[in-house]
């Protein structure tokens, strides 16, 4: 059964000199991985800090795990886990001592805290490193210990603020596996990230935020689809063939053709991908032109993201210009 575990409406937060959130909405359900995506200063961390009871907010309403964040902070705190941007584990204590300490601070009895520490060390693949200090760990191991520490009470909602920033590829994969595991067990995961491949791979849904406002919310596939059609791309084996290739693509394309001389490629959007690909292949064979690559390309999430953020920046610039006009 899916239940709504995170519900935020019209969140507003002003710091002294800037508005961090200007009416932000967010929903998430159990077992869902929700990605918060946006440029630096967009309001991602502010949102996480509000939902984890660390920060008061000015307007709006937020409930997490069924409790009001502002009024029932203590109840919320029992039902959430937080992994912030820095790994907040004690470098001097061993991995096990860390988990026992946090277990005690989550108010387990000593025996329960020790039992839970052992379970989590096993679950996060740290059993062999249990009696070593985190300062000897790899980045990925340290992050996993950090995750384990926020999992002591098996939270209903897990918040991760840039969980893989600064990790090597192996470390990122370790964290991804851990996050997928959490969601499979029914935990709601809310994560912020700069990495679009990470959002693409992990998230069921992505909320794009900029200037403290919702820009768009969709599945990763949906976001990419919003970018428009697939593109047919041919990369020439010989740069001299570019003109001929352009001729072929021209007959198949459903939009503007882009010729990239540096990459020796010709590309254009196509409405019907499979017939377009077949037609291109046939034409190449007929004319006996050798190519380095022929294929269909779906827009990447990066492109979708830049397009969306670019739009809001443009809108903002226009607003400023309108204001300037008004001043005159």
């Amino acid at each position: 059964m899916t239940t709504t575990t995170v519900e935020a409406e019209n969140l507003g937060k002003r710091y002294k000199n800037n508005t961090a959130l200007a009416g932000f909405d967010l929903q998430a359900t159990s077992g869902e991985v929700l990605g918060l995506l946006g440029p630096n200063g967009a309001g991602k961390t502010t949102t996480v800090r509000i939902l984890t009871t660390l920060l008061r907010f000015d307007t709006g309403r937020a409930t997490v795990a069924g409790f009001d964040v502002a009024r029932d902070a203590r109840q919320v705190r029992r039902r959430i886990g937080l992994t912030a941007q820095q790994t907040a584990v004690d470098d001097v204590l061993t991995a096990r001592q860390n988990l026992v300490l946090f277990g005690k601070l989550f108010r387990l009895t000593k025996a329960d805290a020790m039992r839970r520490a052992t379970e989590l060390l096993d679950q996060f693949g740290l059993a062999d490193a249990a009696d070593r200090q985190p300062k000897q760990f790899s980045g990925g191991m340290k992050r996993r210990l950090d995750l384990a520490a926020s999992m002591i009470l098996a939270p209903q909602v897990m918040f991760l603020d840039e969980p893989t920033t600064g990790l090597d590829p192996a470390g990122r994969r370790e964290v991804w596996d851990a996050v997928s595991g959490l969601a499979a067990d029914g935990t709601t995961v809310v994560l912020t990230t700069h990495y679009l491949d990470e959002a693409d791979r992990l998230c069921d849904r992505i909320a794009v935020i900029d200037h403290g406002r919702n820009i768009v919310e969709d599945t990763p596939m949906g976001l990419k689809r919003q970018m428009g059609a697939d593109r047919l791309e041919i990369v020439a084996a010989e740069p001299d063939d570019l003109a001929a290739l352009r001729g072929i693509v021209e007959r198949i394309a459903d939009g503007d053709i882009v010729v990239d001389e540096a990459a020796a490629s010709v590309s254009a959007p196509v409405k019907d991908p499979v017939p377009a690909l077949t037609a291109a292949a046939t034409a190449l064979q007929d004319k006996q032109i050798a190519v380095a690559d022929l294929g269909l390309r779906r827009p990447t999430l990066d492109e979708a993201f830049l397009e969306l953020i670019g739009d809001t920046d443009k809108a903002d610039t226009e607003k400023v210009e309108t204001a300037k006009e008004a001043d005159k």
Partner: protein
Amino acid sequence: MTATLAPLPDETLASRIKWTLHDYRAIVGQEFVHLYRQPVNFLWQLGFPIVMVLLFVYVFGSAMDVTGQGAGVDYVAYAMPGMFAMTMAFGFMNTAWAVAEAKEKGFVDRVRSMPMASSAVVVGRNIADTIHAAVDLLVLFIIAIVIGWSSDGTFWETLGAFALLLWLRFALIWVGVFLGLLVKNVEQAGSLFALAFPFGMISSVFTPPELMPGWLGAIAAWNPVSATATAIRDLFGNPAVAGDSWPEANALAAAIIWPVVITLIFLPLAVRRFQNLGR
């Protein structure tokens, strides 16, 4: 996934107090693990007062005439209680540094997002630092005895002197917590030394305020560190060169009152600062 471990209820006042104490104990326990796993760090922290003792006793000491009976006479007896007081005075930097580090590393945020008493970060720190300071004093005491210093006071007077020292350190913990929360990062906490140095030194620790220019002597005489240093000199039966100003003439009272004043000012500031982390 393993069964959810429900947190124990803490709804009644009695159980809330019980669990709050439990949180404090957990944080103090963490500090003890630090202490025994990093004995080298502990010794480094003590390194400064030890070097100062050796410098002032063996390098400058022979040229110091604080009692008016000639250079070097009784200087160890005069300076040693000063060293004890100065070590306590500098202690607030350790507190500030530890608090700044916990904040910078996200430990404070983690704790604040947990269902525990968030005051444990501050109070646990306080208890741990006081114990830490007691160990500092014990080590310095042994060094002092080795280089020929002794307390001529009774057992209870000597114990009272150490209690006064810890009383000063306890009050300064609130200064440390406040400053630790105020600074942006650990680097800034390190530069608090610029504050600690004059606070510890412009006092009767090494020389009587009488021997300083008038205005500076007045500052030194009213420095809380001087009050504690002069009061414990009396209790240890060491030579004290007290002037006529009120805190010098009433050193014992001043040594008791100053920490109260410091606590009354900095405890609310530290609490306010901690609450403002949510702004």
